[in-house]
Structure formats: structure tokens, C-alpha cells
């Protein structure tokens, strides 16, 4: 799961908030990153269940 930090002050979430992929459903995430609104924080690989 990738999480993103809100960098700008005109998004629907307050500046500084950390949001996840699920919060961004239906949105163009790449455009938000390109536009400086969001910054990817981390990307944790999911473990395969054995």
C-alpha cells in the first residue's frame, strides 16, 4: 500500500495529512503528484501468504 502526504493547502484533505490509495479512488493520482499536491511516502511490498 502506498501512502501520500498532502503538500498543498487547497486539497480536500488538510495540508500535512497522510492518505492512502483507498482515499484516492477515482482520482488521477499521477496528476496530483506531478502537480505537487501529493508526495508518495512509502511503498511496502505485500508478503505472500504461505
Amino acid at each position, binding site marked *: 500500500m502506498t501512502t501520500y502526504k498532502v503538500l498543498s493547502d487547497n486539497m480536500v484533505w488538510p495540508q500535512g495529512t497522510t492518505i492512502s490509495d483507498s482515499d484516492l479512488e477515482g482520482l*488521477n493520482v499521477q*496528476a496530483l503528484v506531478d*502537480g505537487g*499536491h501529493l508526495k508518495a511516502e512509502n511503498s511496502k511490498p505485500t508478503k505472500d501468504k504461505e
Partner: protein
Amino acid sequence: MAVSVLKNASVTINAVDLSSLVESVVLTFSIDQLEVTAMGMTGHRYDDGLQSNQCVVNLYQDFAASKTEATVYSLVGTTTTVIVKPDSGAVSATNPSYTLSNTYLAAHTPLGSSGRVGEMPMVQLTFTGGDLVKATS
């Protein structure tokens, strides 16, 4: 008579509130009209088809961080969600929200539509298609 006057409409594009840069917004909720007229009928008959929505937003261009250009440029040729409200306040029966999801942006006019000297460039965005949902709470 409680008519509504647009003074502080809210326009959110791709989860970014650009209301303070919006000059006008026109949302058109439309459903395709499919003809089902058959022999023996004396007039045209229609049935409903798919939604065929459109949202046209005119914005003042602003190249500063997180403003018009930063928000819009990378949206061209993709789909996103646009939310429009008559007023920026809480959603209610008298201030419904209209959420247009999966709507496509085909073009963007970063230097305005005419590009004349001395002109304030206006960005006109036409979002087409997508699914419109109205909420009152």
C-alpha cells in the same frame, strides 16, 4: 421567493479545491434519448439510455504552485472526478453536491483561448462523460 444566486460556488477538480480561481461553471446532466418508435404508433416514443454529462469550467490561469496549471496540465487525456456545489458550505438539501466521476478531460488552454496581448488568460476545461451523482447529505 427563495431563488438561488451563485456567489460562492464550490468546484473541486481531482480533489483540489480551485473555487477561488473559477469564473464560471456549467454542469449539464443529460441522459441519451433512445428512440423506440415502432409501427402503429402515432407519435415518437423514447426511452432512456446512458448518462451523457458535461461540466464546463472557466478558470483564471495561475502558474503558481498548486494552482490552475499545476492541477490541470497532467489531467489532459485522462479521467478524474469533479465535484460542484452551489455554495462552499456543508452539503444539504438546499446545497446539494454533484459528483461527476470517471469524467474525461480532452483539452486545456494554458494561455487562454485567444492569446491576445494584454489579455488575462482564461483556462476553459470541458469534462465529458462520466457518472453524475447528486447528494443532499
